[in-house]
C-alpha cells in the first residue's frame, strides 16, 4: 500500500435525520483529509455536528431515520455503505475509538484484562496467554501503575483517569492506524487531563497512530493537535494548521471563541468578548451563513452559503475580504461587546 496517500479522506459528508418536523441536517458537506501520524483537532460547541461526523466515519449511526451521504475513504477503501462484516475488519483493528465516558466502552462484569484480551483475540488469532501478556504490556505503555495486578481489576476498582487509560490501552491493542477520540478528557480533572493528553501525543511516536481529537476545549487542541477544524452548525467554518489558526484565526466565529476564553496570562479584560445569542437549532437553520445572526460583520453577501476558501492550507467559510480580516478581528477584540 502506498504510504504517501492520505490515511483518511472525507468528502462532502452529510448526516441528516428525518423527524416529525421534516429533515434536520446535523452535518452538512464536511470534507477533510488526514495524513498518517497526523493529529487533527475538531473543535465546536454542542450541536456543531462534531460527534456526528465521527460516528458517521465509523458507520456507527444506527438510527433508521438517519441519512448519511458523501464519501469516507480509509486507505483507499470506501467505508460508507460497507457491510457490517467488512466494516468490522476495519473498526477496532485499524480504526479505534474512545469516548468521553470510559464506561461506555467497558463492561463492569469483566476484568479490564479480559476485555482487552477479548478485543485482541477478536481481531487476531493469538493464544490467551500471548494476548494476556500483550494486555499487560499495553497497560504498562499507557501508564497504569503495577500493570501486572491492574490487569485483573474490574473497572469500578479504577479511578476515572485510570479507566480512560485502560480504554486507550484497549483501543491501541491492535495497533490502529487511526484513533478517534471524542472528548476523551472532558470528564477528567485538569491534572489527570494533562496526563492523558501527554499520552495521546505520545501515541504517534510509540504506535504510529494518527488521531482525530474532538473537543470543545481550544486549550486541549493547542496542546496536542497539528491541524484544526472549527465546526459550527454542522459545517466546517475554518481549517488550518495549529499555528495559523491560533495566531491569525480567519472566521468571526473563531474570533468569538477565542474572545470567550478568559486568559491565563497577562492582564484580565474587564469583560469577555462573548458571542451574542446562541447557536441555531438544527431544525431552524438560518438562510445563508449559519453564523450570520450572531455575527458583528454580517452584510448582504451573507444571505448565501459561504464555502471554504483561502490559501496555504488555511481556509475559512466567510465572505469577508481576505485582506484586512486581522484588522477587523482587532476592532472586535478592542470593543467590549455587551453580552
Amino acid at each position: 500500500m502506498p504510504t504517501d496517500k492520505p490515511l483518511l479522506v472525507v468528502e462532502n459528508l452529510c448526516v441528516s435525520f428525518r423527524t416529525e418536523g421534516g429533515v434536520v441536517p446535523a452535518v452538512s458537506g464536511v470534507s477533510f483529509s488526514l495524513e498518517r501520524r497526523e493529529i487533527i483537532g475538531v473543535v465546536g460547541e454542542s450541536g456543531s455536528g462534531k460527534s456526528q461526523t465521527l460516528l458517521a466515519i465509523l458507520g456507527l449511526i444506527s438510527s433508521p431515520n438517519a441519512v448519511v451521504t458523501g464519501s469516507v475513504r480509509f486507505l483507499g477503501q470506501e467505508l460508507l455503505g460497507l457491510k457490517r462484516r467488512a466494516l468490522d475488519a476495519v473498526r477496532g483493528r485499524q480504526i479505534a475509538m474512545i469516548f468521553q465516558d470510559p464506561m461506555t466502552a467497558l463492561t463492569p462484569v469483566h476484568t479490564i484484562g479480559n476485555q482487552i484480551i477479548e478485543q485482541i483475540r477478536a481481531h487476531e488469532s493469538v493464544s490467551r496467554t500471548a494476548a494476556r501478556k500483550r494486555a499487560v504490556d499495553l497497560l504498562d505503555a499507557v501508564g497504569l501503575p503495577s500493570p501486572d495486578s491492574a490487569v485483573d481489576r474490574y473497572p469500578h476498582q479504577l479511578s476515572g483517569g485510570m479507566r480512560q487509560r485502560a480504554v486507550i490501552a484497549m483501543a491501541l491493542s491492535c495497533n490502529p492506524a487511526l484513533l478517534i477520540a471524542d472528548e476523551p478528557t472532558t470528564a477528567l480533572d485538569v491534572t489527570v487531563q494533562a496526563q492523558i493528553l501527554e499520552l495521546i501525543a505520545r501515541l504517534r511516536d510509540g504506535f504510529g497512530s494518527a488521531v482525530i481529537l474532538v473537543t470543545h476545549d481550544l486549550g486541549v487542541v493547542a496542546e496536542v493537535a497539528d491541524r484544526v477544524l472549527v465546526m459550527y452548525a454542522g459545517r466546517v467554518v475554518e481549517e488550518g494548521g495549529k499555528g495559523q489558526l491560533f495566531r491569525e484565526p480567519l472566521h468571526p466565529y473563531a474570533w468569538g471563541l477565542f474572545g470567550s476564553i478568559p486568559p491565563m496570562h497577562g492582564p484580565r479584560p474587564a469583560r469577555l468578548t462573548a458571542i451574542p445569542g446562541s447557536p441555531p437549532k438544527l431544525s431552524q437553520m438560518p438562510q445563508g451563513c449559519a453564523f450570520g445572526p450572531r455575527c458583528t460583520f454580517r452584510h448582504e453577501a451573507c444571505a448565501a452559503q459561504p464555502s471554504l476558501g483561502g490559501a496555504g492550507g488555511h481556509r475559512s467559510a466567510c465572505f469577508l475580504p481576505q485582506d484586512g480580516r486581522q484588522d477587523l478581528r482587532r476592532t472586535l477584540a478592542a470593543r467590549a461587546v455587551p453580552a
Partner: protein
Amino acid sequence: MTETRPKPLVRTSDLSKHYPVGRSPFQRRIVHAVEQISLDIFPGETLGIVGESGCGKSTLGRCLVRLTEITSGSLEFGGRDITKASQRQLRPIRRQMQMVFQDPAASLNPRRRVGDLLADPFRVHEKLSRSEMADRVEDLLVRVELLPEHAQRFPHEFSGGQRQRIGIARALALRPRLIVADEPVSALDVSIQAQIINLLADLRDEFNLTYVFIAHDLSVVRQFSSRVAVMYMGSIVETGPVDAVFSAPRHHYTIALRSAVPVPDVDNRPAQRIMLKGDLPSPLDPPSGCRFHTRCVAATSVCRHERPVLSLVDKDHFVACHHPRRG
C-alpha cells in the same frame, strides 16, 4: 488582617463537615469532606474556590449558606453566629444568602412556569399583591437579559444558557448580599459561558454583591475573582489575591494545578509542565501529615508526620506547606 478592613460578611472558624459512609454501623467510616476551614469573606469581594473533583469545594459552599449541617467549627454571617441556628431563625437570614447551581435544569421545577418559579421567593419572604409580584418578576427577567414574555414559558423551552439566567434571576430576587455560585458556567458552551460571566460581573457592580465562586476551571476563576482559595482533600492549601496565587503560586499543588491547564495559545506555552504523580488518595484513608505529600515533589519526612497550617508568606497570601516555593 489589617485593621482598616471592613468586618467580614462571612467568617468561618475551623469549619468541618464529616459524612458517614458504609451501610451497616460496623462498616461505617467517616469522610472528612471539609476539614477545619477558617475563612473571612469581605463585603463586595469575590472569593474563588478551586480544586479538583472531591476536594470538598461544593460541600464548603453548601456549608456557607447552611444548606447542609455543619459538623464542627463555627459559621458567622453578618457578625451573627448561625452555626446552630434553627430553620426558623435562619429564615430572615436566608434571603440575604442565595445559591446558584451548576445544572439549572435540575434546580427548576419542570412543571411550573418561569414566572411562577421566580415569584416563589416573594411569596415566601414578602407580602406583595399579584400585580406587584408580576412587576418584580418582569424586572428580574429583563435584568438577566431575558424577555418579559418568557414568564409564561416552561423551563424546558429554554437553552442551557437561558436556564442559567433564570437560576441567577431567582437567586437575585430578594436582593441578597451573598451569592454562592457552584460551577455556574461549567455545563455551558464557551461562548455562552462568557455571556454568563459578564452578566454575573455586571450584577456584582450593580447590586454590590459578594460572591463565592466555586469552579474547577482556573481561567474562569482568574477572570472573575478578586481572591482565590485552592482546596485539596478538604482543606485550603493556598489562598490569596488572584494575581499572586496564579502568577506566583507557592504551594506545590497549586503550581501543578496551574501548569496542568491547557492554554489556547501556541506562542505562550508554559516552559515546562509539572505532572502530578498518581491519583487522588482515597478520602476514606487520607495520607498522614500533609495530605499532598504522596504526590508532592518537595515532600520530606516532616511532611509525612506534621500537618502544615496556613501561614502568611506575602501580603494577604497564605500557604499551608512546610516547603513552599520561594517567592
